[in-house]
């Protein structure tokens, strides 16, 4: 079984890559407020599902790739994603056993935390930026999307025997 699991780990990489591509996908600026954070959802799912395999190091690496992609200061997203991975790993057994609607609330909190971290990093680097309070709507969108992402990912995980 171990052998088989090692075989299918590439699917996680593929899913994370898809997450990055979705994340940087052009999004109309008028509905910017409701852009979901796909990468965060996918990453949190896999840290909860396979905490041995997908951890802080992975989150850091993904963050660096995302930084390069979006042209932000190198390390900014890596910083925020590492903290998110830590928070979800810290109590992963608890979160895993919660009902989906309770997980949904945790996802909303995690996304708000992520947005705030990025905001503070931006302040520290550029000293002055324009804050859009509506940005936090995207956390709610993340929460609403979580059950669907969760079910989809679980389906993929069971289908490909990724354990």
């Amino acid at each position, binding site marked *: 079984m171990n052998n088989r699991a090692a075989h299918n780990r590439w699917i996680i990489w593929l899913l994370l890559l898809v997450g990055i591509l979705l994340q*940087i996908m052009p999004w109309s600026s008028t509905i910017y407020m409701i852009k979901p954070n796909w990468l965060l959802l996918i990453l949190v799912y896999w840290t909860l599902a396979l905490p041995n395999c997908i951890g802080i190091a992975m989150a850091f690496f993904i963050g660096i790739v995302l930084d390069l992609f979006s042209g932000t200061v190198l390390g900014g997203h890596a910083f925020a994603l590492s903290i998110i991975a830590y928070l979800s790993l810290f109590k992963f057994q608890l979160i895993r056993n919660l009902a989906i609607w309770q997980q949904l609330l945790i996802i909303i909190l995690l996304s708000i935390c992520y947005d705030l971290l990025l905001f503070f990093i931006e302040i520290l680097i550029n000293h002055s930026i324009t804050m859009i309070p509506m940005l936090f709507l995207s956390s709610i969108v993340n929460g609403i999307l979580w059950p669907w992402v969760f079910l989809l990912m679980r389906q993929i995980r069971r289908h490909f025997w990724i354990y």
Partner: protein
Amino acid sequence: MKLLFSRGTPLGLRLVIALILSTVLMICDSHYQTFRKIRFYLDTAISPLHFISNTPHVAFDNLMEMSKTREQLMEDNTALRNELLIKHNDLLLLEHLKHENQRLRELLGSPLRRDEYKMAAQVLLTNSNPYSYQLVINKGAKDGVYVGQPVIDEKGIIGQIFATAETTSRAILVCDTQHAIPVKVLRNDMSMVAVGNGCSNNLILDFLPNNVDVKVGDELVTSGLDGRFPEGYPVATVVSVDIDPHSANLIVQASPTADLKRLRYLLLLWGEDRFPSSTNQKDETERTPPVKLEEKQYE
């Protein structure tokens, strides 16, 4: 139960290592110029992904193109041909005016204006980060793109190149908070600086002269004083002139003429001394260097 944390470093330590690493990276990236080179190679390494992320867009465009009927294509063709005819007609006159202008400048002893070398580029990706407004385009250092190069489209100035990689490069838009561009009012040649204020807001005009004469509807064009943007390209139109009640200063806002929210194709300009090596146009006679009244470094 499988092994949880019995193997490897504890969770907290891993977090601390990741945080320290990313902080060091952030400090290096934002403070040291030498880090730019490393970033160039890293950007080059991931640029294939930019092309991949653009494929759905390209496929959609192709699909739209294929679904057009023959009649539509013919209609488009006639419309374009008519437009071309009119544009050519304008150009005939322009050529004459250019010569006249050249001669007049020679008479006045002012520096001559040169044509810029242009290259069309395609937008691979518009950045959707709310704090920075950047584009990725499909031309890079291989095509002779350099940092600080002006980027325009058919309506006006879009921004300038901010970082390059081998096959892609990143442009910063005029509306970015880190961007500023020297402009002048087309009506009376009064020069000032247009500073970006986020792409959902208008540009703010700074360094206004004391007896400023600006009206709503005034056209702002590049003044060319920075030695980076060529003179005379439209940048923005003044939309409001207010008085700040606290300091009695004017607050002038202008909206960019280019439609910065939906960009697909744009033009890169090479200044007269920065022609790409492939087009050998350096064999011209001695030129008078352009008068630079003011050198400003922009981030």
